[in-house]
């Protein structure tokens, strides 16, 4: 009995020291971690807001920063699209430029090992919405060398510029497009099989998360607008 008490007290002392050290490190790195996360998000946002044809930034850099700084806490909304359970990670960001409305959303859908997280920019112009470009934020659970190749620029660029007709039909990768007569972006088909050989599940997750974000954008964000 005495031994057990003694051991308990000793263990508690060690745990207390460990907790104190960790508490100190946590508090002193808290701001730096927040900044690092923010700047990573800023870089991703800059990437999706860069015109994929001209390579120019569509929105003022300072404006992006302001929006990010004042965006508040993240909130996850579960959403299902045609049997796929995904998420939309709020807040979304809205920019008004020269009569155009640009929406930036973050969504996720299950890939090979876990969620694949994608940021996407949708542009609303003359009453029509199209997917401008995407950036994969997290695919760390995908197989390195296969699915994780989605982190490279090449595969991500394949998803740029999908018109509303494609989004309405639902975005699919070319391997899933057997029922689509014409395999182009107007029909929602994105060709990835040549650039990501042997990996279909990961780009499919990207396509699913785009569909989830688009349906959220249509229903929850633009629901009231005509």
């Amino acid at each position, binding site marked *: 009995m005495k*031994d057990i008490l*003694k*051991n308990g007290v*000793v*263990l508690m002392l*060690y*745990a207390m020291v*460990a907790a104190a*050290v*960790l508490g100190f*490190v*946590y508090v002193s*790195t808290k701001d*730096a*971690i927040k900044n*690092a996360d923010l*700047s*990573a998000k800023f870089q991703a946002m800059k990437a999706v807001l860069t015109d994929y044809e001209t390579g120019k930034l569509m929105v003022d850099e300072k404006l992006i920063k302001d929006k990010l700084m004042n965006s508040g806490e993240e909130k996850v909304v579960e959403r299902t699209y045609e049997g796929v359970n995904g998420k939309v990670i709020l807040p979304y960001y809205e920019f008004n430029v020269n009569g155009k409305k640009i929406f930036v959303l973050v969504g996720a859908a299950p890939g090979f090992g876990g969620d694949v997280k994608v940021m996407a920019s949708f542009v609303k112009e003359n009453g029509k919405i199209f997917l401008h470009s995407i950036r994969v934020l997290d695919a*760390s*659970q995908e*197989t*390195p*060398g*296969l699915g994780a190749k989605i982190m490279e620029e090449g595969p991500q660029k394949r998803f740029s510029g999908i018109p509303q007709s494609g989004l309405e039909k639902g975005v699919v990768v070319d391997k899933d497009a057997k029922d689509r007569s014409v395999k182009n972006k107007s029909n929602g088909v994105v060709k990835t099989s040549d650039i990501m050989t*042997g990996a279909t599940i990961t780009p499919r997750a990207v396509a699913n998360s785009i569909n989830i974000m688009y349906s959220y954008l249509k229903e929850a964000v633009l629901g009231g607008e005509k």
Partner: protein
Amino acid sequence: MKENENMAWYTFKKGITSENPTYVQALGMCPTLAVTTAAINGLGMGLAVTVVLTLSNIIVSLIRKAVPKDIRIPIFITVIATFVTMIDLLMHAYTYDLWKSLGIFIPLIVVNCIILGRAEAFASKNPVHYAALDGLGMGIGFTLSLFLLGSIREILGNGSWMGIHLWNFKMFMFILPPGAFITLGFLAAFFNYLKIKKEEAAKAKAKAAKQAQAQKA
């Protein structure tokens, strides 16, 4: 003094060669097989383990006289987990890109049995400088092993090395889990073969020396 130096050198060296954690002790197999899909991943995981292993060995050795025998394992785990969490936070704050690419491996280090194994088998019984050398040696041995395994798998499975494209011939199997087991098996067999050859040579040498002595007499 000379003997001390030899002892220190041996403590450091044994982790890389004769007691290599991966190919000889077969410790820490889970991260070894899981992360070595590319050379750079092996290197990153190895370096992270080296840092944690050296630090935890030093602390465990320092507190070894103040640890009751019955509760040594929970205390060692507390020390290791504290270091891992600390490094995770610090890397997240100051080296974001590295943290992002190593992110999934860092929490794995807590349950990496090399670290607990060395704390229990070596650091808790030896003075600080030896414990530090042991941690450093084992860590470097682990890093080199993972780097080699990752290099072979990346070259065969993806036709590249350290992200540099080599050729278009790819055998996907080597990037998938079976490739990890096969490569590890062949490498362990190869290092065992080298060890046996060396022992045989040493035996033959000793025998020859004995015979020469007998002839002289």
